[in-house]
């Protein structure tokens, strides 16, 4: 995926952090079409839900 901050093309890992500029990405800033960090649909759902919970001030 391309980092929306610095444009680096990198393979997203668990924490979705750009290795160059350090920008922390999330499922609310990057669409699934631009990111292939998840193994399948269930992981996509888990990540999206976790991200939404974090944004609302909740925990995993």
């Amino acid at each position, binding site marked *: 995926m*391309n980092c*929306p*901050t*610095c*444009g*680096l*093309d*990198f*393979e997203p890992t668990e924490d979705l*952090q750009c*290795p*160059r*500029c*350090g*920008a922390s990405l999330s499922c609310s800033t990057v669409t699934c079409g631009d990111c292939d960090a998840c193994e399948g649909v269930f992981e996509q759902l888990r990540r999206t839900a976790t991200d939404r919970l974090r944004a609302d001030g909740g925990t995993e």
Partner: protein
Amino acid sequence: MEGCHDAGCEASEIDADSTLALVGCPNVGKSVVFGELAEQYVDVSNYPGTTVDTTLAEFGDYQLTDTPGVYGISAFNEEERVTREIVLEADAVVNVVDATHLDRDLFLTLQLLDMGIPTVVALNMMDEAEAGGIDIDVDALEDALGVPVVPTVAVDGEGTDDLRERIPEATAPETTAVEDYYDELPDELTATRAEKTLLVEGDEPLAREVDVGGVMADGGSAALVEPGLREEIYGARRSRVQSIADEVQIVTEVEGGIREWLSDLMIHPLTGTPIALAMLGLIFYLIGGVVAQRIVGITEGDIFAQHYNPAVEAFVSDLLPEAAWVDPIEFLLINPELGLLTITVQYVIGVLLPLVLAFYLAIGLLEDSGILPRLAVLTDRGLNRIGLNGRAVVPMIVGVGCVTMAVITTRMVGSKRERLISTALLGLAVPCSAQIGVIMGLLAGLGLVWWFGYLGVLLAVLGIAGLVLDRTLPGEGQALVTELPRLRVPRPGNLLRKTYNRTKMFLREAAPLFAATALVVSALDYVGGLDAIMDGLRPLTSLIGMPADFGQILVLGLIRRDFAAAGMTDMALSNAQIFVGLIVITLFVPCILTMTMILKERGKKSALLMWLGSWVAAFTVGGIAAATLGVLGV
């Protein structure tokens, strides 16, 4: 600095033994530091990507180079390629680091040090770091990096004397963590530490050079190392960055404050859209209303029309002898349509200069305050549909004031493809403020329905033309990659100086082009070419249901769009004819000044295609409008 000008020096003008490059992430203040060190002004804005080219100056024994902002030394885009070349050639580097973004900017610092580039770090924006609750132990950072670190607030000149003194101490640690990866490179490779570091990071241009040089045994492949190695090295460097940042800075939570609140409001679609519309309305009122109508009314209508032009005409007539051969010369110099010494000067000084000054001032305000990138984010999604990204909002805003100026600002929209689309849309369907003034006056007499109808047709043409261009031009639209800078109160000194410099550059470039255009048009007029053009337009005027006299309006429109609109005020036309006529002259070819600028910015082929395309669009849409109104019985 002898021989250099405001925008920098030519390399040949500099007599220096060593080269020093200013390198840093976008919008960290490199150009301000450059200005302080070189004691000269370069364009500075609160917007990533202000420096798109390099600027040179003499600084002591060094040739100092200001480079485009990059997040790392690599070759993923044009800015990175330019900066990478300069860094590889430089004897030393001043790495400007934003103290409020230590964890982001130290990646580049560590990469430079891994490459063995002698470096001094200018830890800039210390005032903003302090205000943001960030306390940095500068000595600890210096120890951790192993190179001089100088705290600065470059916009106030703080710390730049220390920076000057410490530049000769530029150094790099003798060993690097990346050295472990050098074993991955071919044994027979002869390369510097900088080159080896970039090669293990998968730098393709360098790998190709090595291949061409015949050093690589199994040639043919651009990559010398395993594909995943770059991410491994980058990941390890990011861990080192995080470790240093955690060690040297203490961050205390502070209230976001009014700036954060305003920033959030500006990029949220629900609140940002009305704020943006209000700001654009204000700018439009100031530029379109106050400057274009009132100030230009004084400069053009009073100073030039009443005083300057009559005086020059009298002077030239007195000066030239009474002879037949003098007639064409006198016509070229002082004819009432586009005389070189009268109307041309009036256009450039009396019309364009006040508008240009006002536009640069308004754009400078938007840039320096940090509002411009927020407008880009807000409009990005809508503009994506017509092959553009959020940056194109700037030329579109400027275009409603003056399309000629807007064509220049298309330089900032991204790729060549996007510049072409935005220029074509500007030339086709964006009326300038002078024209809008006359058009509003004409439509006011018809009623509000006609005004909305006119706007609807223009927006439809804009959307359809954008879609067609997006689907037919080769390549793909570039995503908006921009980091939002902080909202700041613009510094009046920088704003005025920037406006002055940009205006001067504009006049220097544009005035000779306008003069040449005026001579050609006047020569055509003198030999009767313009009358012949008017006769040739008769089939087209009848196609859109307009009287033959409308040909004269079109000829005026070839020179200036507002002339065409103004010319219509004297014609006896029905409501439908006024409506169709206004649509046609809005979509008709851009004025001579705009065409000159399109020619300069986009080249002959694009300019010709846009010019011809405007004819087709104007008469096609005008014909459809006339036929529709006819069917409706209006």
